[in-house]
């Protein structure tokens, strides 16, 4: 696999999270298949890893998030109370942040924090 390869994904936001992403629920995007292990920090290391959900969360923060990062992330992951589904399966069954993204994956983020 060359380092220029990409993975295309369908990313969806719902439960109110879409409001942080231009009020758009569905986003098609391509991300690099191999990414720096230290993506998001400035340690300067050049070690790479296959793109996983932890990378995707940071990538979304840096590229698509429009406002109020604290409503999306806490530490290096999503804020507690946000559900993540990988092709309709709870990410807790898929290794959570360590799940390696595959071509055509659908990743859904749902906030449970919005009241009625």
């Amino acid at each position, binding site marked *: 696999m060359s380092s220029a390869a990409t993975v295309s994904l369908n990313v969806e936001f*719902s439960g109110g999270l879409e409001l942080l992403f231009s009020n758009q629920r569905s986003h098609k995007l391509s991300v690099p298949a191999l990414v720096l292990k230290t993506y998001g920090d400035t340690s300067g290391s050049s070690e790479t890893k296959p793109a996983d959900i932890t990378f995707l969360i940071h990538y979304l923060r840096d590229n698509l998030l429009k406002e109020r990062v604290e409503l999306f992330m806490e530490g290096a992951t999503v804020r*507690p*109370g946000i559900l993540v589904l990988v092709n309709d399966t709870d990410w807790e069954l*898929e290794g959570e942040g360590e799940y390696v993204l595959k071509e055509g994956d659908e990743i859904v983020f749902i906030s449970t924090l919005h009241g*009625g």
Partner: protein
Amino acid sequence: MPPRTCGLCATNRAMLKRPKTGQQICRDCFFYVFETEVHNTITQSNLFKPGDRVAIGASGGKDSTVLAYVMKTLNERYQYGLDLFLLSIDEGITGYRDDSLETVKRNQQQYSMPLKILSYDELYGWTMDAIVSQVGKKNNCTFCGVFRRQALDRGAAMLGVDHIVTGHNADDIAETVLMNIMRGDIARLGRCTSICTQGEDTIKRSKPFKYAYEKEIVMYAYFKKLDYFSTECIYSPDAYRGHARVFLKDLEAARPSAIIDIIHSGEAFEIREDVKATQKVQQTCKRCGYMSSNDLCKACTLLEGLERGMANSGITDRARKKLDAESPAPENLRTIPFYQPPSSGEAAIAVETAASS
């Protein structure tokens, strides 16, 4: 990772990890266990009897939308023999409640249940938009909370129902337990975990989702593709509850059983009789007939403050005394229509049914 099979049917692929038990289960087993647990909650607490008229407090949000769907499903599956209604309160918040009520109107069609919408404007003569323009964003949740509680009872009386069910879930109840501990409100702590509350004059209220995790409610709505509305109220949210909520979600992330454990702690507290007794004796409001622990109920006090341009009078005792000292309420003061507790049986008003709209 290889796909895991469902821990219940051992056939299908697991799609969800249950926060309560850690069990990994498939979509169909999830529907079955979620619905069955709600059914067990209902039957173990003897919430209903055949022929009951039950209003579902419906906001268009996830909890009440799932509750309406599950109540309809269980009523048919287990032949509860209930007449189900949707009851919505329109607080008059432009860009928030007007949109969520559109969701409730669609639910009315989808579930073919009669719907009653009662607005603050028709009941109190004030929308929340108008209240916020007078009192600002700081205390408006006090008005909204007091007005909603009474509006739900009055809407239920108009529908002639015996019972209101609300979508409060396990996370909401655990939050309330924490808040009552943090505020030292021990009398409320003793009451807040009850599945069902009923005062002498009030309509019975219960919470069939008392043990249902928010995560499962949201997953249920997602898998069933239920139509719900999710936007934060545009006016200041209840900040104190917000802190309790974030704290609870952090606990849940570390240990998912925390929510049910906190509810259990709340239930297990034994409240001393003299602490319980601090709750004042209930009477009826001299102005509107609604139950109250003072001469005037909280809603009448708040409304009088609004009408006289002294909105803080309902919020602090000091401002209330000042209002009383200045002058008695003027004769032509706008008041809330006199409350007629339900005599059970028929609806006092015609309700819109799915067929007629």
